[in-house]
């Protein structure tokens, strides 16, 4: 919720955009007795809609739950006529939105319910007041409802962004496995798109592992990288340079015909790297660097 950054200035700016004036708030406060008089039937009618639709009814497991939520809804409804639109009011609205997001109630139910609210209020306002008063009252309440709706949608967005950030962190963690294939030989299979952020992370992690394992050779296999453009090539060159500074060598494998063509056409100079197509060749080369070789066993007679 802190991430929504709803300080006094932001609330002020929103109110200005929703044209929610002090007059509106005063008018809403004066409707308090009207709201209290109708709150029960309006909330009941709202739940008629919600419980009448099989998908929204699914959120309610028992009659006791319906009763509890109805009483919360009544509080929420009366909140519209408190004549306030300050920090605590906004926080209360955000809490309501966050609670709905947590139970997985999609914004469509939210907005549909608001629409019913407005229609129920419209009918009762025109029944109770003169047409001019009813119209003014309706305009004021519809502004505050729109203001509330925006807050509710913001909480959904904030929650989605949170989830996305968590998932991105998880993907990043999974995306740079540095494997020790032999004593002093490391293998880094790069799979998927390499953006600058990920490239930096790959480099940092790889350098730490090179020193930890005292690796002499690092095989970077890019067979799983869909597109190698100048930026990706530049990252590979930087990583190779940094690995070299530590005293190890980089072998780039998994270079397809397509990637080879791209690299040359882009005019990227990767001559400082050992480059090979097959990972197996890369492993042989790496073993050669540490004075080992793969040999066929003598044929058994």
């Amino acid at each position: 919720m802190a991430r929504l950054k709803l300080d006094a200035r932001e609330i002020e700016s929103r109110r200005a955009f929703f044209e929610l004036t002090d007059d509106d708030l005063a008018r809403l406060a004066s409707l308090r007795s009207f709201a209290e008089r109708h709150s029960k039937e309006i909330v009941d009618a709202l739940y008629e809609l919600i419980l009448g639709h099989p998908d929204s009814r699914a959120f309610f497991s028992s009659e006791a739950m319906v009763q509890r939520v109805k009483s919360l809804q009544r509080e929420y409804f009366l909140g519209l006529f408190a004549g306030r639109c300050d920090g605590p009011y906004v926080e209360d609205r955000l809490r309501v939105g966050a609670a709905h997001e947590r139970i997985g109630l999609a914004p469509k139910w939210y907005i549909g319910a608001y629409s019913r609210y407005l229609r129920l209020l419209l009918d009762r306002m025109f029944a109770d007041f003169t047409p001019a008063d009813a119209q003014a009252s309706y305009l004021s309440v519809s502004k505050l409802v729109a203001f509330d709706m925006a807050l509710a949608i913001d909480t959904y967005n904030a929650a989605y962004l949170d989830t996305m950030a968590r998932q991105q962190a998880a993907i990043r963690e999974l995306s740079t496995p540095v494997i020790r294939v032999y004593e002093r030989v490391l293998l880094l299979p790069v799979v998927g798109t390499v953006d600058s952020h990920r490239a930096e992370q790959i480099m940092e992690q790889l350098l730490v592992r090179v020193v930890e394992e005292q690796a002499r050779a690092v095989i970077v296999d890019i067979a799983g990288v869909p597109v190698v453009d100048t930026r990706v090539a530049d990252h590979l060159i930087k990583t190779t340079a940094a690995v070299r500074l530590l005293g190890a060598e980089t072998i780039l494998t998994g270079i397809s015909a397509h990637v080879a063509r791209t690299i040359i056409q882009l005019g990227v100079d990767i001559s400082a790297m050992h480059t090979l197509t097959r990972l197996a060749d890369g492993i042989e080369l790496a073993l050669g660097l540490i004075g080992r070789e793969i040999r066929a066993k003598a044929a058994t007679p």
Partner: protein
Amino acid sequence: MTRGPIPILRVGDTLLITVHTDLHDTVAEAFQEDVLAAIEKTGAGGLIIDISGLDMVDSYVARVLADTGRMARLMGTRSVLVGMRPEVAATLVRMGYPMEGVQTALGVDDGLALLAAVNRGK
């Protein structure tokens, strides 16, 4: 053998220098002079500079280190820079200072092995 703040050890035909202190301007110059004087005096075939004690290398220090290696080379001495920390390597590359032409190795052992291999082929 030791004169300045950075000790220079002799291991067989090789000079081994372990840099612990930050190589700021005056120290760096004295360091370079000491190393070259030691090469002149001993006629050492190899030079190993161990920088595992440095957690920061700026472009000035990087240049001093690279230059020292090049100067030693002019005097017929191969040099190897060993023990660079991962964060130092990453920073140098990001700054666009990859110290091309400088021989590197992971540690003193590797550095000695590298010098032995190079000098064997000489």
